């Protein structure tokens, strides 16, 4: 009874012979990904310790870019707006669920309705930005006229420091809600009908049914919806650029836009300072990315 289990199964040798094959399949994709995605991350960190206009020689300045950031009011405005984006953008998840519940019926033509509700996600953010600029436009924008009609005075949302970021976030929510909706519609399709029936016989309905029976089954959809929404909120760039260019007076900037502005604006190329902003944004995102990856890794191991 002392025999140890064989720790060298005969298969291992055969497997080693093939160990080069997967790397050959991986090589082209990994090479491209390394050159354009992985290595640039480290290069950006390196650039952030320099003063560089993108053309001439780079000058090492240590942490000077970061200490400048520390005292930069525009940086804090952008950071504050990013937090606002993150918090409000997450509303897309419950609102998407709400629309999905509304549409999860089998009446005639419902498929067309579902596709049309999904519409805003398919069109480019540039077009969404232009559509909402028109919607908000002072004097004749649909929303402007509506507000004027209700309250007596119109509000030029995109020209008002108090409202501008909310106005842009609302534009961003439109396609994002559509995306969350489609995730939940797919999820609802797969909810086990027998569990619903059983719970119904036990007298569960409405909110309690949703909370205790349906939502737990929708967990994979919720996970993806949250991941995509968080990433989307921190990546927001297109709408800010199209709708306000960060204005009025820089009040609607977010980190991604501020970075772009510093690195490539008409006021001169400050690549080092831009890279430092990007590193901060990357660090914030890493908190979330690590969390997502950790969960996915655990699921993968659990298989």
């Amino acid at each position, binding site marked *: 009874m002392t025999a140890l289990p064989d720790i060298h199964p005969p298969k291992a040798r055969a497997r080693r012979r*093939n160990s080069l*094959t*997967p790397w050959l*399949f*991986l090589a*082209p*994709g990994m090479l*491209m*990904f390394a*050159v*354009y*995605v992985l*290595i*640039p*991350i480290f290069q*950006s960190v390196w650039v952030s310790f320099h003063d560089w206009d*993108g053309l001439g020689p780079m000058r090492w300045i240590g942490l000077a870019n970061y200490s400048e950031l520390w005292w930069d009011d525009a940086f804090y405005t952008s950071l504050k707006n990013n937090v606002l984006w993150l918090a409000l953008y997450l509303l897309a998840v419950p609102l998407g669920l709400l629309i999905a519940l*509304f549409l999860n*019926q*089998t*009446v005639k033509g419902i498929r067309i309705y579902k596709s049309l*509700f*999904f*519409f*805003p996600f*398919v*069109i*480019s953010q*540039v*077009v969404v930005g*232009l*559509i909402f600029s*028109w*919607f908000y436009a002072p004097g004749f924008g*649909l929303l402007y*006229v509506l507000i004027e009609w209700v309250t007596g005075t119109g509000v030029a949302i995109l020209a008002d420091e108090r409202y501008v970021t909310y106005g842009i976030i609302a534009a961003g929510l439109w396609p994002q809600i559509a995306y969350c909706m489609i*995730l939940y519609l*797919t*999820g*609802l*399709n797969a*909810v086990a009908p027998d569990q619903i029936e059983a719970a119904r016989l036990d007298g569960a309905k409405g909110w309690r*049914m949703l909370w205790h029976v349906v939502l737990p089954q929708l967990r*994979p*959809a919720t996970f993806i919806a949250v991941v995509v929404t968080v990433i989307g909120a921190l990546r927001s760039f297109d709408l800010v650029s*199209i709708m306000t260019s960060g204005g009025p007076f820089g009040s609607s900037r977010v*980190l*991604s836009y501020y*970075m*772009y502005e510093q*690195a490539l604006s008409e006021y001169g190329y400050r690549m080092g300072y831009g890279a430092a*902003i*990007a*590193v901060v*944004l990357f660090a914030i*995102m890493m908190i979330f*990315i690590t969390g997502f*990856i950790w969960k*996915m890794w655990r699921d*993968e191991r659990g298989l």
Partner: protein
Amino acid sequence: MFPRPIQTMSPAFQRSYKIALPIMLVLWLLPLLGVALTSLRPSGDLAAGNYFGIPSRIAFENYADVFRNSPIAQYLLNSFRITIPTVIGAVGLSCLTGYALAVYKFRLSLVVFFMFVAGNFVPFQILMVPVRDLTVNMGLYNTVTGLALFHIAFQTGFCTLFMRNFIKALPRELIEAARVEGVNEWQIFWHIVLPLVRPAIAALSVLVFTFIWNDYFWAMVLTTGAETQPITAGLNSLNGQWVAAWHLVSAGSILAAMPPVLMFFLMQRHFIAGLTLGAVK
């Protein structure tokens, strides 16, 4: 089914649901409908303050105007020249990587896989300065090729995630049986796996097409000028020129939105299958 099918509800409830559906839809798409209507309104109407009423006539000439007086045809062409190679490149590369990560068991397999997944989530700005520099040094700044190369590399991350999971769900016995027969690895990939992943290729193609068509940030970073810029960046500069000419801006927007919308309606099933991958266990 949740919520309860309305067929089990009172007729009055059913009727109100059927009335509510189109009303909700119109409200939901109100901004888009407004723009679509504006794109068909003659400029005279706008000057006269007729923004919401019935257009005095349908003005298709707005579209003709946009084509005649702006490089929008060139922008649209550029978008295709960037998008199509990217779709082919990224989907092709990810067939290879996805196969390697799904079929072979090797020590670093999960590490490589999660590297692709994580890279896919990073903010674009952390890549911007080095990628722009690299593109300039390769002499590809302000070229369609330079932009497409970056897109191929970046999209490979998402496509690998998708392909690997798709291939992993295929029956393993097929591959094992072929190995026993002595079929070599490349032939297994080419003759057995590739035909089976056709639905995944279709789904990825429509998704990548839409993502790249709608890309704006990289177009702004890696291209300037009408000979190379895609429609998203082009629309931005036209918007600067056409201050307050909303009938033209609207027509341009509708044109820019058209290709992905058509793609969506033609390939709806694949599109949604791709987007909702992983939304159900």
